[in-house]
């Protein structure tokens, strides 16, 4: 530190000799100031119009200026006591950090990214998917076994809102003409079904299954199994009336998509549950933060699948009044989803 003060000189001299004081921190500031101000200008422009609006050479300068601002901050913390300077540098570094490490993708790219990320996340959670599927299968078997033996169970197992008047008293003809091959209700109702998908039973179940993962997963499994029970009960009802094949076709045309989506929601909930129960080396919060994105990707993808299912259900199901065709469409959707979820990786590698 070069202080050219005459030490021991205590007499004040308002005029005349003036000792010159040079502070290292002031020198430091003088030499670096230009860079800081340039950086500040670039950030302000990026904040206003987005980082893509910067000219190429400005874009190339940005990381250099950012690193030098960070190093200035570190030096200033060690040598400077100018509080305003420290606060300014801290603020400048933070703003530059945010400008540089913010996502550079637009909405379209993010959408494409998601299209690839969703299958990858699902594949990573394949064991969770399997568990979710097993819970559902157990539910179907239980529901079927109970109801096929005694149709009184149907009313117990299926909530009235979902049964929609169907039950032990329904005749074969009523089911065949009023449900499976019911006439197309018209465009307005179809649009209504599609538009209302967010608040449909299945979406709510899917969201609940995902969110209840926070309650370490047991409610998720119960919920998924219960959906299986409901399906099993319906299956038994139609089985008893010799409508098994027609019913399966009627369900499958949208159910392949819909049930897969619900199972994926369950799997996402199980991922969350696993990361809470077994955080590995991380704290539970950190574990959730690192893997929560994967779970959220699965759940979001599943909700989009539910939207597709709603289109199939609202638009196509009653229009296609033929069991073989329904099976064909169901098979096509099933193969489509499997190919997408299983093979998207190949496309990812090609890039």
């Amino acid at each position: 530190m070069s202080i050219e003060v005459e030490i021991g000189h205590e007499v004040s001299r308002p005029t005349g000799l003036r000792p010159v004081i040079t502070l290292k921190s002031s020198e430091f500031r003088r030499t670096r100031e230009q860079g800081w101000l340039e950086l500040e200008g670039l950030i302000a422009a990026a904040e206003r119009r987005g980082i893509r609006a910067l000219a190429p050479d400005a874009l190339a300068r940005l990381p250099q200026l950012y690193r030098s601002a960070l190093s200035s901050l570190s030096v200033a913390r060690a040598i400077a006591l100018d509080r305003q300077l420290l606060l300014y540098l801290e603020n400048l570094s933070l703003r530059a950090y945010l400008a540089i490490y913010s996502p550079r993708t637009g909405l379209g790219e993010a959408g494409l990214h998601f299209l690839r990320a969703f299958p990858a996340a699902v594949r990573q959670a394949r064991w969770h998917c399997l568990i979710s599927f097993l819970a559902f299968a157990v539910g179907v078997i239980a529901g079927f076994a109970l109801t096929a033996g005694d149709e009184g169970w149907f009313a117990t197992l299926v909530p009235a809102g979902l049964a929609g008047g169907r039950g032990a008293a329904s005749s074969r003809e009523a089911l065949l003409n009023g449900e499976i091959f019911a006439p197309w209700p018209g465009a307005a109702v179809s649009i209504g079904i599609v538009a209302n998908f967010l608040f449909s039973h299945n979406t709510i179940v899917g969201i609940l299954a995902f969110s209840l993962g926070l309650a370490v997963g047991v409610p998720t499994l119960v919920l998924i199994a219960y959906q299986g029970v409901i399906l099993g009960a319906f299956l038994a009802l139609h089985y008893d009336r010799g409508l098994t094949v027609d019913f399966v076709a009627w369900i499958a045309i949208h159910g392949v998509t819909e049930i897969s989506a619900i199972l994926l929601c369950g799997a996402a909930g199980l991922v969350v549950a696993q990361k809470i129960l077994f955080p590995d080396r991380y704290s539970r919060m950190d574990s959730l933060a690192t893997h929560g994105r994967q779970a959220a990707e699965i759940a979001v993808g599943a909700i989009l699948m539910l939207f597709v299912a709603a289109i199939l259900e609202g638009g196509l199901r009653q229009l296609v009044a033929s069991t073989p065709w329904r099976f064909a469409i169901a098979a096509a959707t099933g193969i489509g989803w499997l190919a997408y979820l299983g093979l998207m990786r190949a496309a990812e590698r090609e890039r």
Partner: protein
Amino acid sequence: MSSTDVADRILRRGWRARREIITPEGVPLVVELAEYSERAIALAIDLVLWLCASLALLAVLLFFAVHGMSGVVLIAVLMLIAFFLRNLYFIHFELSHHGATPGKRIVGIRVTDRRGGPLKASAVIARNLTRELEVFIPAGILISVPAGSASGIQWGYVLVVGWLVCFVALMFMNRDRMRAGDVIAGTMVIALPRRHLLADLVEARAHFAFADRHLRAYGTRELQVLEDLLRRADAGEAPELLRDVCDRICRKIGWTQPVAPADTALFLRDFYTAQRAFLEREQLFGRARADKFEAARKRE
């Protein structure tokens, strides 16, 4: 933490909670968490913008087509439009404008990675879509389910309201003020006031010469409080306060020469310069003095 903290309790009153993040370059930075009120205002602004856009889109839709739609279907269509528009709005702006929607930008808050890493697109998508689960879908259910007479529906209401309450309460129950979407995405919302570089207060040409024995009385905290006072005085505040402070400093450091009232500001500035030079030199030699009490201990 940095030495900026020394005078903080006096000068900034510390009304914002602060956290430290570490940038990918390994430099710790102090961030200030956004207040609940700021986030609420930002959300309100965004919601107003979103609602206007949805209604405009619905008006266009009504103008062009579909006369045969019943009221219920219309509401459902509106909900669907609103759903897509809302998510595209939030995700688009947080992606392309450094983690700030228009509402956040107006209020001056940002979304950032909780641990100082890069903010990823997947995190932005996750935190925004989780908002659907937290608030909008339950709220939509509350609106769209008709208030029925059956007791089952009442229970449904209780469930949905409980759901909403739980998620809002979550924000108040963790120290980083994260909502569920932030927890899952690993993000937090910070306030980002903009600071400007003010002039250095150091006077290169001193009129008053201070010896080391004059400068041992104070530490960094007093220096920075004095800095704050001088900056306020530059802005025309508190002239009589300067005189008072000047007298106190003279008494404390044992300055016996009279200081003319006209020279008060000059004296304080010179003292600031000399004091800062002294303290910075001492800090460089590993003898940092945080405040006057530490300075007194070091003098003994």
